[in-house]
């Protein structure tokens, strides 16, 4: 068992091992998990948002179509960072305002008092008495929702384009077989559109990976936050004083991000080959020729 009781007396490898296993470093390692969980949750949710958005944008019903087009146009037209700063605050305060209306109908003080936003204590979400962990989980959920909405809009546009790219002849053939519109959509359009959507979705996935440092803006302590905090020069006030090591920490992050994006690229390439099989695309045609 590693003895780290007196950090200032340690030297060499022993010091390094103790340093790398401090509570703060464990928080740093855990934050990698936070980023991975964010990616794992956000990607499918954003894809679902995108699919719904694309379907809405193609709808024959005018209000639904406007909703779908409006969603993509609005989110795509606003800088991400503005959206992140605005949306999270608006969502947070909106929820608290609603709870306030339900739980404290007799509250007479103004909710907006100058720059202050003040609801009754029972309406705080999460309640002020909740442990910090609950606040962190709540913050994380807000972050996932924001990421999903922003990236959902981009995904909607990609999927919309992919749906339009499926050759009309394919759909006509399906109709000629007597399929209903719904059947054509499910059995022919959707299976064939993925090959057109994949390059765009792959781009989005890589951008999403690289956008995760925005988490810190939303108050979630992510890997970039911890790298900066741990790497900064430390005086004797700390157990493990050291000079400015931010370069090494950020180098570590670079390796992490490069590994993530490179791994993703390899996966996307395999997925692309799989989707092109038997498709009436150039890549699909090349595969067919190679096989014969």
């Amino acid at each position, binding site marked *: 068992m590693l003895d780290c009781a007196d*950090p200032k007396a340690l030297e060499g490898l022993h010091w390094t091992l103790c340093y790398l296993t401090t509570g*703060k470093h464990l928080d740093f390692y855990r934050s990698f998990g936070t980023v991975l969980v964010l990616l794992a949750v956000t990607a499918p949710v954003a894809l679902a948002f995108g699919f719904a958005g694309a379907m809405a944008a193609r709808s024959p019903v005018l209000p639904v179509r406007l909703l779908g087009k409006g969603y993509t146009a609005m989110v795509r037209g606003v800088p991400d960072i503005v959206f992140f700063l605005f949306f999270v605050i608006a969502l947070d305060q909106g929820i608290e305002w609603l709870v306030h209306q339900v739980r404290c109908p007799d509250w007479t003080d103004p909710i907006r008092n100058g720059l202050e936003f003040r609801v009754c204590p029972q309406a705080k979400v999460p309640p002020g008495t*909740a442990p910090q962990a609950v606040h962190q989980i709540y913050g994380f959920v807000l972050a996932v929702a924001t990421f999903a909405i922003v990236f959902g809009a981009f995904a909607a546009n990609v999927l919309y384009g992919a749906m339009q790219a499926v050759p009309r002849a394919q759909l006509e053939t399906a109709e000629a077989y007597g399929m209903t519109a719904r059947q054509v959509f499910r059995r022919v359009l959707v299976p064939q559109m993925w090959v057109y959507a994949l390059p765009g979705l792959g781009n989005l996935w890589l951008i999403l990976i690289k956008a995760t440092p925005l988490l810190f803006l939303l108050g979630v302590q992510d890997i970039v936050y911890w790298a900066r905090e741990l790497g900064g020069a430390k005086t004797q*006030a700390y157990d493990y004083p050291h000079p400015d090591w931010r370069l090494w920490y950020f180098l570590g992050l670079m390796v992490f991000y490069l590994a993530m994006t490179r791994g993703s690229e390899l996966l996307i390439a395999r997925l692309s080959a799989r989707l092109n099989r038997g498709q009436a695309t150039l890549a699909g045609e090349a595969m067919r020729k190679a096989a014969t």
Partner: protein
Amino acid sequence: MKRLILGTAILALSAGMSLAQTVRMGTEGAYPPYNFINDKGEVDGFERELGDRLCEMAGLTCEWVTTAWDSIIPNLQSGNYDTIIAGMSITEEREAVVDFTQNYIPPAASAYMALTADADIKGGVIAAQTGTIQAGYVAESGATLLEFATPDETVAAVRNGEADAVFADKDFLAPVVAESGGQFVWVGEDVQLGGGVGMALRESDDELRAKFDAGISAMKADGSLNELIRKWFGPDAATF
């Protein structure tokens, strides 16, 4: 694991109401020795010890929260925490948007720190943290102000030559100078800024502010505050 987290969350949500009042203490966690995140990953420093003692005296349960310095006031106003206890000097501009308790650190000196004693602090490039009284002072002094989000970056900027000097609370810079082995030196005279350091609260939270004010008065009266200041800032620190 997920169920466990959810379970605790629900438990905490339902049990919360009956407990004693919980006060969320907002701090920066990057300004040793005032407040910093220690190697266990907890908030530590002079203000941690002071805050915990004040909460104990007032019978409050306190929870520590860290946040970026440049959004520390907006986050207080929108209710993400209830107090700011982050080495924040009492100034008129801040008084206009938040309410301060009485000061718990007397008006203290700010100082310039540079690599050489002849650094140009009147017309050169001076690093300071965004939104501090020191940044405001540099902007009016005629020097070129270079702002950074964290105190650590202001020091790093001087070390790598990006800025000629850094201007900050002397109590923050003192350990840096002392431990630099001669790399850093003080430049020019100390400057007195602000009305001391106090806790900031929302303007509508008078009741809570009175509790902390009473605690600080009591600690000033029995000398325990001075003791705490000397413990964290050294025997020569200004006391009450």
